[in-house]
C-alpha cells in the first residue's frame, strides 16, 4: 500500500543520521549538489561536455584558481582576507621569466628557480602577515594596498610579455605521470596537506580558534600573531606555486597574468561555505567552490555564452552566493 515500510517514526529514525549530516554540513552538501545538477544539465545538452577528456580538462584547469583558493581559505578561516594572491602569482611568474630571459633559457635553472619562486611567495606572505598583525589594521585594506604596490613593481619588471622560457619548463603544465596529469597530482597533494593541516594539527586548529574569537584564543594560550603570520605565509606560498603553473601554461611572462584571481579565489572560498567572518568552514567546501567555478567557465564555453555576458553571469552568481548565506554579526 505504501512505499514507506513501517511507521513514519521508524522511517524518520532510519534516515536520522543522513538528516543530521545534511544539517551539520549544509553548505557542503549544497555546493556539491549544485555541481552535480549543473554537470547533469550540461551533459544532457552538450555531448562534448560529458566526454571524459573534458572532465579531466576541468580538473586540470582548476589548478591555478584551486591553489590560490586553498591558500585564501586558510587566511579567511582566521577572519582576514588576502587580496595580494593574484599579484603574488604575477610577481613570481614575472621574476622567474626575467631570470630565464637573462640566463638565456638555461634549463638547468628550472629546479632552483621553482624553489626561488616559492621563496618569493613565502617572503611576500611574511610581509603581509607582519603588516596585518603588528599594525593592528584592517587586513582587507592593508593587503589591498600591498597588492597595489606589487602591481606597480610588476609593471616596473616588464610591460611586455617576457619570452625565453625554456621548453622543458613549458611542458610542466601538460606533463603526465603515467596517465595522471601532474597538475591534478600537485593540486591533490596541496589540498590534502591543507586538509590534514586544518583538521588534524594543533597550529591548524589554532586558525579556527583565532578566527572564531581572538579573545578566547588568547585566553587559551594560542599564539595569535604567530598563527596569523603563518596563515598569510601559507597563502603566499600557494599563490606563488599557482604563479609557477601559470607561467608554464602561458608560455610567456605575461604582465597581465592572474588578473581578477584574488576575487575568484574569495568567491570559491565563500561558495564553499567558509564563513567570511572567520572561524568556520572546511577545505572540502573550498574544493567544491573551485570545481564549481572551473566548471562554470567550461559550461559557458560549451553553451556558447556571449563573452560579454559571461562576466555578468559570474557577477550574478557571486551576488546570489554572498546574499544566500547569513552569518551573525556582533554589533
Amino acid at each position, binding site marked *: 500500500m505504501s512505499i514507506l515500510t513501517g511507521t513514519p517514526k521508524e522511517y524518520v529514525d532510519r534516515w536520522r543520521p543522513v538528516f543530521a549530516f545534511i544539517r551539520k554540513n549544509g553548505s557542503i552538501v549544497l555546493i556539491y549538489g549544485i555541481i552535480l545538477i549543473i554537470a547533469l544539465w550540461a551533459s544532457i545538452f552538450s555531448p562534448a561536455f560529458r566526454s571524459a577528456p573534458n572532465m579531466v580538462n576541468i580538473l586540470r584547469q582548476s589548478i591555478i584558481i584551486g591553489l590560490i583558493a586553498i591558500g585564501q581559505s586558510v587566511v579567511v578561516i582566521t577572519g582576514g582576507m588576502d587580496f595580494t594572491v593574484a599579484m603574488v602569482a604575477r610577481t613570481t611568474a614575472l621574476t622567474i621569466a626575467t631570470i630565464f630571459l637573462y640566463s638565456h633559457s638555461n634549463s638547468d635553472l628550472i629546479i632552483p628557480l621553482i624553489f626561488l619562486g616559492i621563496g618569493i611567495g613565502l617572503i611576500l606572505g611574511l610581509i603581509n602577515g607582519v603588516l596585518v598583525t603588528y*599594525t*593592528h589594521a*584592517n587586513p582587507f*585594506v592593508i593587503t589591498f594596498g600591498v597588492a*597595489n604596490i606589487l602591481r606597480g613593481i610588476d609593471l616596473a619588471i616588464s610591460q611586455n610579455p617576457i619570452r625565453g622560457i625554456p621548453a622543458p619548463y613549458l611542458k610542466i603544465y601538460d606533463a603526465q605521470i603515467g596517465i595522471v596529469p601532474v597538475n591534478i597530482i600537485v593540486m591533490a597533494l596541496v589540498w590534502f596537506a591543507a586538509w590534514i593541516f586544518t583538521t588534524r594539527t594543533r597550529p591548524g586548529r589554532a586558525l579556527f580558534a583565532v578566527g572564531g574569537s581572538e*579573545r578566547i584564543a588568547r585566553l587559551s594560550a594560542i599564539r595569535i600573531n604567530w598563527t596569523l603570520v603563518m596563515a598569510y605565509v601559507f597563502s603566499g606560498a600557494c599563490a606563488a606555486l599557482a604563479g609557477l603553473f601559470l607561467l608554464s601554461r602561458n608560455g610567456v611572462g605575461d604582465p597581465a597574468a592572474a588578473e581578477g584571481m584574488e576575487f575568484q579565489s*574569495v568567491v570559491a572560498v565563500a561558495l564553499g561555505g567558509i564563513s567570511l567572518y572567520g572561524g568556520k568552514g572546511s577545505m572540502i567546501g573550498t574544493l567544491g567552490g573551485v570545481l564549481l567555478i572551473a566548471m562554470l567557465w567550461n559550461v559557458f564555453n560549451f553553451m556558447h555564452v556571449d563573452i560579454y555576458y559571461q562576466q555578468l553571469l*559570474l*557577477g550574478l552568481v557571486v551576488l546570489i552566493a554572498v546574499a544566500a548565506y547569513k552569518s551573525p554579526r556582533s554589533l
Partner: protein
Amino acid sequence: MNSIPVKPNVFSRFTTLRANQRLVSGVDWAGKWAAPILDILILILAGFIAPAFYNPENLKTVGIQIAILGVVAIGQTVVLLVRSIDLSVGMLMALGAVIVVQTQEGASIPLALIEAFLTAAAIGLIIGLLVTKRQVPPFVATFGMMVFIQGARLAYSHGQASGTVPELLRAISINPLGGFLPAALVVWVLANLAVLFVLKLTPVGRWIYAVGGNPAAARYAGINIDAVVIGAHIFCSMSALLGGLMLSGYIGYLDLGLGADYNTNAIAAVVVGGTTFTGGRGNLYGTAAGVVLLILLLNLVVVLGLPINWQLAMQGLVLVAATALQGFRQFLLNR
C-alpha cells in the same frame, strides 16, 4: 593623569606595549594632521625639485583631478563613517558615464541623467541591503558588486563605448568659470559644503557619527541603523556617479578603463585624511586634505618624469601607510 587606564577585558596583540599619554596623543595627532602637514611640505618641496609643477596648465589639471577624486571621496567618507566600505566606486563611475553618453543619442540629457542617478541609487540600495539585512561583509558585497557592474557594463556596451560627451558634462568639469577656475573645483566645494552642513548641523549627521561610533548604543538611542547604513551607501554610489560624469567630461571621450584606479585612490585619500575603518571618527576637512595629498603625489610622479608604474606603487604605499597609522591610532584610542 600620566597613564591611560588599561581596561582589563581588552586583549591586544601588543601585550608588551605600554601606552602612555604621550604616545596616544602623539599617534592621534599624527592620524589627524598628517595629511595637511604633508600637503604643505610637498607644495614647498615641489617648488625646489619640480618647478614645472607651478605651471598654470599643470595647476589646472591638478585642480580638476582633485575635484573629481574629492567628489568620490566624499561618498567614501560617509560610508567609512558608518563602518562600511565601498569598493565598487571606480566601476560605477564608468557605468554612469556609459549610460549617460549612450542614452543621450536618442533621449534627452535630463532623462539620461535621471536614469543614471537612479541606476546608481539602485546599486547603492542593493549594497546597503546586502550589508545590513544579509550581514555580508561590506568588503565582499561591494567587491561582488564591482564584478557585477563590470559585467553589466560590458554587456551593455558590447565592449565598445561610443558617443560624444555631452556639453553639460564638459560644463561641470573642464570649462573655466570666471576665466580660469575649472568648474569641477566649484562643484567639489559646493558638494563639500552641502555634506558638511548635513554632517555638522542636522540630525542625519549625528545619526551617521552615532552609528559609526557605537552601533549598539545608537540602536538603543532609537536610531534606525539599517536605514542609516543603506542611506550612506546610496549617497556614496550617487556621489561616485557624479565623479564619473565629471571624469568623462574632463577626459572628453569614453573609455572602458575609465575610473579603474579610483577604488584604491578614494579609500587611500579618505584614510590618509584621518577617517578610521572602525567608524565614527573622521571628517570632510581631513578627506579634502587627503585628496590633495594623493593627487599631489601622483602629479609629482608625472612632473618629475618618473615611470608611470610609480603612480601605482605610490597609491599602494599611501594606502598601506595610512591604514597602518589609522589602525594603530584606533587601537590605542580604544584601549
